[in-house]
């Protein structure tokens, strides 16, 4: 009886994916250890400060969660795109517009009560991000322009554009290029004082639930996945794959826009130019690691959030530049994208091509 259950679990593709992903992390960390050793540092110190920095005490754990939150959104955004065969590398630009829209609409209507202001802020962020992604989506549908190139170009245009608008129209007094702070009632309540950890985490988990439901239990989700698996067959079945491309990009962008909203409403409480340390790009690693599944993305986001928080600690205490964690990120993406490696090393014959 127990074996039957175990076998059933093993045969669920989620299980194999988890193993592949864990395997990738382990290999990436081994390579990271080699690099640490080569640069003359102690691997033990490095990895212990890394771990402590992420999970060592309550405060550190809150910081891990704070860093996790934007990654949940950008990871989901990229994952949604991947499920439809689209590579949304533009989450970075989409989150900037999301943050911008949220900030501005709150600043324009400071008089509204919190019960309206907060939802409006969130919706504005989602709409802005969605619109910014829908354009490359439309270009892909209409002209076939590869979304990798267009979304990347749009990232540059977004950072330049938001900087321009802030500097010239919404700048608060002072030397820094930033807006004024949003009123207290528009901020997401803190979960723990002076940590930056807010209700944004619940919004994140709620989004995971919604997206999971969308992808797995709705007809639209069916269409999105069908186009990603086999666009020709989807068309044969009557699905308008061009329409789905635009819709998927819009949803993806909306979720990325929410990342920006959450940062503004939960942590920064204002828009500061160039505030993102690359959440949009890390989101790609998160999506790939999470095998494009919403709950997998949640776990992967936690992992990368821990790497971010722990990385800062590692830099502070063990003097190891946190850019090393970016290297690990890149390695993780490479390894996760190549499941054949796992097969080669373990000698297993299952060459199911895992499409990322």
């Amino acid at each position, binding site marked *: 009886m127990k074996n039957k259950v175990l076998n059933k679990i093993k045969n669920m593709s989620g299980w194999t994916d988890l193993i592949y992903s864990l395997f990738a992390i382990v290999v990436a960390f081994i390579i990271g250890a080699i690099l640490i050793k080569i640069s003359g540092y102690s691997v033990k110190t490095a990895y212990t400060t890394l771990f402590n920095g992420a999970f060592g005490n309550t405060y550190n754990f809150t910081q891990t969660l704070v860093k996790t939150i934007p990654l949940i959104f950008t990871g989901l955004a990229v994952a949604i795109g991947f499920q439809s065969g689209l590579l949304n590398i533009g989450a970075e630009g989409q989150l900037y517009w999301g943050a911008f829209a949220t900030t501005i609409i709150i600043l324009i209507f400071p008089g509204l009560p919190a019960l309206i202001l907060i939802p409006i802020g969130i919706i504005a962020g989602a709409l802005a991000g969605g619109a910014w992604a829908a354009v490359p989506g439309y270009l892909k549908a209409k002209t076939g322009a590869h979304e990798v190139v267009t979304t990347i170009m749009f990232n540059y245009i977004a950072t330049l554009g938001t900087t321009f608008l802030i500097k010239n129209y919404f700048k608060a007094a002072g030397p820094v290029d930033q807006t004024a702070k949003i009123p207290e009632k528009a901020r997401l309540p803190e979960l723990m004082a002076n940590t930056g950890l807010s209700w944004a985490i619940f919004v994140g988990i709620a989004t995971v639930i919604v997206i999971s439901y969308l992808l797995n*239990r*709705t*007809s*639209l989700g*069916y*269409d999105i*996945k*069908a186009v990603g*698996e*086999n666009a*020709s*067959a*989807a*068309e*044969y*079945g*009557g*699905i*308008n794959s061009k329409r789905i491309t635009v819709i998927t990009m819009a949803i993806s962008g909306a979720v990325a826009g929410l990342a920006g909203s959450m940062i503004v409403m939960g942590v920064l409480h204002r828009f500061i130019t160039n505030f993102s340390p690359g959440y949009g790009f890390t989101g790609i690693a998160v999506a790939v690691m999470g095998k494009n599944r919403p709950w997998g993305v949640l776990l992967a986001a936690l992992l990368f959030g821990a790497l971010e928080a722990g990385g800062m600690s590692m830099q502070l205490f063990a003097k190891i530049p946190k850019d090393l964690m970016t290297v690990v990120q890149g390695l993780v993406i490479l390894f996760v994208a190549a499941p054949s490696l796992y097969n080669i090393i373990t000698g297993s*014959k299952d060459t199911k091509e895992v*499409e990322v």
Partner: protein
Amino acid sequence: MDAVKMKNIIKKFGEVVANDKVDLSVKKGEIHSILGENGAGKSTLMKILFGLYTRDNGEIYINEKKVDINSPSTAINLGIGMIHQHFMLVNRLSVTENIIAGQEPIVNNIFINKKAARKDVKDLAERYNFKINPKAKIEDLSVGEQQRVEILKALYRDAEILILDEPTAVLTPQEVEEFFEVLNTLKEAGKTIIFITHKLEETMEISDNITILRDGKKIADLKTEETDSNELARMMVGHEIDFSVDKKEMQSGKDVLGLEGINAYNERSFLNLKNINFKVGEGEILGVAGVEGNGQLELEEIIMGLMNFESGKIYFKDKDISHYSTSKRRQLGIAHIPSDRLKRGMIKGFNLGENIILGSEWQKPFAENGILNKDRIFKYSDKIIKDFDIRTTGSRSSASDLSGGNQQKLVLGRELSREPELLVVAQPTRGVDVGAREFIHDLLLEMRSEGKAILLISSELDEITKLSDRILVLYEGKIVANDKADKFTREELGLLMAGHEGEDIDEKQSTK
């Protein structure tokens, strides 16, 4: 002496044993046929001989010397050439480039000597009586011409042993005759020819010796002059085949599908559909005969709304559906069994349940207001798996685990269970074993007696003649004949498929 001897060849792909201790002996200078059903292991065996696959066990002897063939280069060096069923030709490159790649004549140690290359190709073609333009791009050539380029590729590399994989699959009956003449020319030049096929008549006509494979095993070696089609059929399949068919006489009713003056241009294949006019009525099977590549794909896709057309109209029961979306057409009651079932007909990454509701995922009972009802989906799917005898572990298993015949049954199950009024079915039994083939033919005839209209597109002439009430012949995008099935002889159909004129189509068209 034996040009080729293969002893005790074993080849496995995972659990499947494609070649199970197969022996083969081919004498120098003979034409040897390897006969068997789809999936018998013929292609696998020859790909081992040509070095595309590596054998798991067994020995190979070329000209009575033991050899190890691990790659096509080795095979080529041993004088073996292979002409594949799906041509290994690069569309965008020229005839010459395709032929010389890998063994290019060089000038100044760096550059390809284009002039010398073209001359070599021309001389070679003339030696075997092939008419070919060395500068032409492959995509501009006809199928028969492309096949000749493939043969030239092998001859350019001094192949003495030629392997041909289902060479007549893409040829009209007349082109097949021309092809046989080519084979005889090659035989006279001393070449040894091995010919993979599932066609009995051709085997009887051209080969000297026959080896029969079934389910991965070698069943028999026969001298052609000592056997006949019936014996071959029996050995190929393992039991008697009933070639007759019980087809009720049907009175066809109202028109269900009508095409009027359809003109279209497919930029991918450069094919023009010209002035297509025909009707299909209730309880009628209209067979579209023709060698693949003469407009069948375009016809299929235009009717389903997957391809645009320039002018003309499409009618479904008096409604003009010319501009309806694919989705709308399906909802009206048109079902489609596509010619490319892997590309169009199913989604490998989805499970069976999900595949079975493809196209219906927004409709009741499978979904309400855009929310899927998984219970109902799997229940429905289970029923179809049972009704259509699809061999699988269940509705939740992945469609990629299905064999070719079962994939086709999945597509049929999905489409037929929607109770369509019009069925557009293309190449229904391609890559499907004999048992499933009979099942599918019976299904189509059953739908016909229930009053459904069926447009049957097939390059298998036997299938067309067996099932159709009326036959239409497509040649280079035009309808060159349209009449009751019993008005044609097989020879006439063959001629029409090759573009030879019978009478003018207007004269032959009976009133409908």
